[in-house]
């Protein structure tokens, strides 16, 4: 089952990007006697954050004993401290382009701090049309009132990267909520949320496949979530009717196969399972060269195909012969003649 991608994952990417960006202003060192421009001020602070982060990571890596690890942990950059400093730069220079960058840094360093909340409010109220806010959008999506903030950004922004990230973030949030509602047996609410998410993913598939979001290509991230979006096989079939590049076609076919596989398992549909099987074979035969986030399309297609062939709908359940909890041996086939609910579980 998919889980919410952690904030930490998003932040790590931004942090790695920080030192490279911070170097841009190195050439201005000659003008040391002049007061720092807002851009220089931001760059200095970003560098300071990067250095603190690097020293912390280094200390953690070198720590051997629990005591050393405890000591190293103290070197972690303090979210509220850095967030406050970045926020101060934004507030001091509201008209300077640097303000938006500084707000993004607030969300990068301390998304859940009070300063993070202020930064979101400022982005939504003062800079919702900024070209630069794509890296902040997925962070905003996961904060309280994220959905409302993203709706404002979608309404006011024209930048395709920002729009794609916002639509993805909004859709992902709705799918997560739908999934939780289903777990709580609120089937109607789950259905409603799923239907609210669907048009967003349809737009992403129709208009934003070429866009790179902050955590990778919109196509790859969207395909990862589609098995959990109701009606997504239909959307994928529609997009596949278009004239597409070899790469996009391969990825969409593999995505459709994964969606059909999940659908076939839930609905017990042999037909959907067979279609998934033949699509996966087509991907292996014709699109093996296309790179995907996890190796090549052939790798993901092969493991899905193997799963269908060995344990798919309509296949005989592999025999199990093992001990029960009390040490008594028994076999799965002992239960032939009964409907069996085979439940992989544990106390956790």
């Amino acid at each position, binding site marked *: *089952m998919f889980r919410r991608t952690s904030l930490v994952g998003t932040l790590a990417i931004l942090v790695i990007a920080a030192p490279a960006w911070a170097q841009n202003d190195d050439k201005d060192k000659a003008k040391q006697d002049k007061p720092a421009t807002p851009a220089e001020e931001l760059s200095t602070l970003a560098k300071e954050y990067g250095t603190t982060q690097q020293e912390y990571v280094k200390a953690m890596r070198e720590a051997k004993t629990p005591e050393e690890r405890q000591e190293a942990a103290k070197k972690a950059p303090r979210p509220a401290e850095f967030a406050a400093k970045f926020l101060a730069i934004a507030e001091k220079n509201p008209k300077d382009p640097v303000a938006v960058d500084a707000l993004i840094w607030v969300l990068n360093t301390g998304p859940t701090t009070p300063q993070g909340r202020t930064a979101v409010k400022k982005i939504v109220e003062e800079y919702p049309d900024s070209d630069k806010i794509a890296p902040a959008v997925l962070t905003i999506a996961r904060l309280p009132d994220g959905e409302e903030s993203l709706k404002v950004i979608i309404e006011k922004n024209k930048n395709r990267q920002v729009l794609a990230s916002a639509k993805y973030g909004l859709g992902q949030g709705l799918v997560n909520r739908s999934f939780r509602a*289903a*777990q709580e*047996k609120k*089937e109607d609410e789950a259905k409603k949320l799923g239907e609210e998410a669907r048009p967003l993913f349809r737009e992403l598939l129709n208009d934003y496949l070429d866009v790179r979001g902050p955590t990778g290509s919109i196509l790859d991230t969207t395909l990862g979530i589609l098995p959990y979006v109701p009606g997504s096989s239909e959307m994928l079939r529609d997009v596949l009717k278009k004239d597409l590049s070899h790469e996009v076609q391969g990825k969409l076919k593999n995505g459709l196969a994964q969606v059909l596989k*999940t659908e076939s*398992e*839930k*609905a*017990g549909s042999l037909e959907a399972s067979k279609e998934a099987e033949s699509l996966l074979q087509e991907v292996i035969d014709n699109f093996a060269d296309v790179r995907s986030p996890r190796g090549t399309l052939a790798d993901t297609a092969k493991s899905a195909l193997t*799963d269908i062939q*060995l*344990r*798919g*709908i*309509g*296949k*005989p*359940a*592999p025999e*199990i012969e*093992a*001990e*029960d*909890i*009390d*040490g008594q041996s*028994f076999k*799965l*086939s002992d*239960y*032939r*003649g*009964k*409907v*069996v*609910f*085979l*439940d*992989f*579980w*544990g*106390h*956790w």
Partner: protein
Amino acid sequence: MFPHERSLVKRLEGKPFALIGVNSDKDRSDCKQKSEAEGITWRSFWNGGSTSGPISTQYDVHSWPTIYVLDAKGTIRFKNVREADADRAINALLKEMGVEVAEAAGESN
């Protein structure tokens, strides 16, 4: 814990139905103790004390819980159905055998 499993076992008592677990706890006697305390009545295969034991490997299980629903012939008919979906799947398979069962609605806890 396991309210849905419990209600399935109760609802389908006396029907040609079995809930079979594959347990991946680390400690067998601990699992036994907890299961008894929780009133777990269904039988489970022991996966060798690990989430990467032989049975979960054979069934390529990477997330928990994973569910397989088999018909009376031992054929895999549904996968990863939960709650109401699971009830519907099981009822459909029992119906194929000519066994009518009451709807699950309202008695799932």
